[in-house]
């Protein structure tokens, strides 16, 4: 067989492979949207779930997902910002730094179920907080920290050195230079990373099953005092999220229409995640233009 012929065959095979990959994605999206969207209605999006069968709307779960996301981000953004600045600015090139980097690497490669189990052990078993929003948010923070830290460090380090020198040569402190000069330039990359990680957090379930729990007690959406037991903002109530709900309905659900329910919930979840991805891109580009060119 000639080299030309082999080349041709290889090219054909690769094209087939690529077609298959694209086909898989199209199939996935089409299946979820076609199977799910017809069942998505306003009452589904806002309704409550029947605690026994798992049937009914996903209003509480949707709220829980967003609430957990917001709490997670509130905790993890400041910490990873500080840690990212440490790595980009203060860390010296020595064994201690490489140990720290390895630790972050290890954390980022741990399976999310392990992170969830650790959260369970710490908050539910040891501290006896129980399945709660706050336990879930902290478990998600553990899961989110390494990626966010790395993203922030990379974005900060990508800012040209001469910007740092400009700040320092004016007598600004390292900290002020980093916060006031470097951070704004790195912001597009950081924001993109944050929004992408928000999508990941939003779809995460394994870390939440045993931390935020698998039940979504109906809350009183007229009561916004976080201290009240019935308030949706109460951080100590259990909070099944949309992703956990999909898992729960599929594995233990007794609802007769479990498949339709989870298709609809999956469609909502996928659309939310796609919006995060799209948002990351749009917001990143927008900020990039703001930072680099005249406003």
């Amino acid at each position, binding site marked *: 067989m000639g*080299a030309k012929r*082999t*080349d041709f065959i*290889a*090219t054909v095979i690769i*094209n087939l492979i*690529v077609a298959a*990959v*694209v086909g*898989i*994605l199209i199939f*996935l999206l089409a*299946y*979820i949207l076609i*199977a799910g969207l017809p069942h998505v209605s306003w009452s589904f999006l806002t309704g409550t779930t029947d605690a026994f069968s798992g049937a009914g709307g996903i209003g509480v779960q949707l709220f829980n997902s967003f609430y957990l996301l917001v709490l997670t981000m509130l905790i993890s953004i400041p*910490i*990873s910002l*500080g*840690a990212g*600045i440490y790595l980009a*600015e*203060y860390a010296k090139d020595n064994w201690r730094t490489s140990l*720290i980097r390895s*630790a972050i690497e290890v*954390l980022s*490669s*741990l*399976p999310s*179920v*392990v992170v969830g*189990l*650790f959260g369970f*052990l*710490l908050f539910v*078993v040891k501290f006896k907080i129980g399945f709660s929003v706050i336990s879930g948010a902290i478990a998600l923070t553990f899961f989110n*920290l390494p990626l966010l*830290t790395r993203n922030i460090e990379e974005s900060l380090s990508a800012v040209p050195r001469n910007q740092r020198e400009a700040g320092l040569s004016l*007598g*600004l*402190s*390292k*900290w*002020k230079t*980093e916060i006031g000069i470097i951070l704004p330039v790195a912001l597009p990359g950081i924001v993109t990373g944050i929004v992408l990680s928000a999508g990941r957090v*939003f779809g995460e*379930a*394994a870390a939440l*099953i*045993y931390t935020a729990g698998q039940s979504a007690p109906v809350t009183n959406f007229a009561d916004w005092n976080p201290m009240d037991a019935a308030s949706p903002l109460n951080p100590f109530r259990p909070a099944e999220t949309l*992703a956990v709900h*999909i*898992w729960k309905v*599929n*594995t233990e659900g007794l609802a007769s229409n479990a*498949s339709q329910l*989870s298709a609809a919930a*999956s469609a909502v*979840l*996928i659309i939310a995640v796609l919006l*995060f991805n799209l948002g990351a891109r749009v917001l990143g580009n927008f900020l990039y233009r703001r930072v680099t060119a005249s406003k």
Partner: protein
Amino acid sequence: MEQTNFQLKKQDAQSHEWDVRLHRATRATREDWLGRGISYLCIGVIILVVASMLWFITSKGIATFTQNHVSLWKFLSGTNWAPDQGNIGALPMIVGSFAVTFAAAIVATPFAVGTAIFMTEISPNKGRKVLQPVIELLVGIPSVVYGFIGLAVVVPFMRHLVGGSGFGIISATFVLFVMVLPTITTMTVDSLRAVPRHYKEASLALGATRWQTVSRVILRSATPGILTAVIFGMARAFGEALAVQMVIGNAAIMPKNLISPASTLTSQLTTGIGDTIDGTLPNNALWSLALILLLMSLFFNALVRFIAKRGQLKNGR
């Protein structure tokens, strides 16, 4: 005499003033202390999380052996998993986890490498415009959605095809294949892009066809990178919990074939940990499974480092 003395004193006073001015703490030094404090604190939190995670899971995971006096060998080689009766042979789950991991990697690698070659060598333009978004979307789909599709599409399909329940290693492999595909592809693309252009140009200039160039020059010099990509994919497959748990059938028995219900470390953990009581043998046994997961994750990590180091040495020479 008086005059010069006075001048000297004045000069002394001035230089003393400068001495003070250039040594005292200012707003900038205080800011720097503050900033240092904040960023050290943040990195400290992360280190603390990692350390306590390793510590807690390890100490829980070894309780089976230290408190319940189960022999490590029995745990690793036993095939009977019935913790209620004191039987904790974890081999079925270990085999299940490795089986789905290797199977998924074996299926996914050719697809990933093919896609990566397309994106870098055949049509970079379409690669950027079409495949890049496709890969990013695949990464973005949450694992419960993969699990749901597996349950709604793959399992019934297998049931029709070969009979039985449809749950099992094949179904899990199928789901994991799609899940690790984007991971392996993205990293393979990076390593193919890192191959110096002149390698390729030299080969083409010698009259080699595109495929000869790709297979003999580009893939060869990107091998460590591709290997790393595959290991990352395997790590993801090994640690994936819910999607696998939804389609594998969760029977803690030695898998006899690829189409009967089986279980993995992660699936056993997700189904079991809520039903056991802290401190009992069944609970400790599950933590031992978690410890295996943790150790495997560290192992994959070390492997990646090892390959990276080898690659550096080779390039250095």
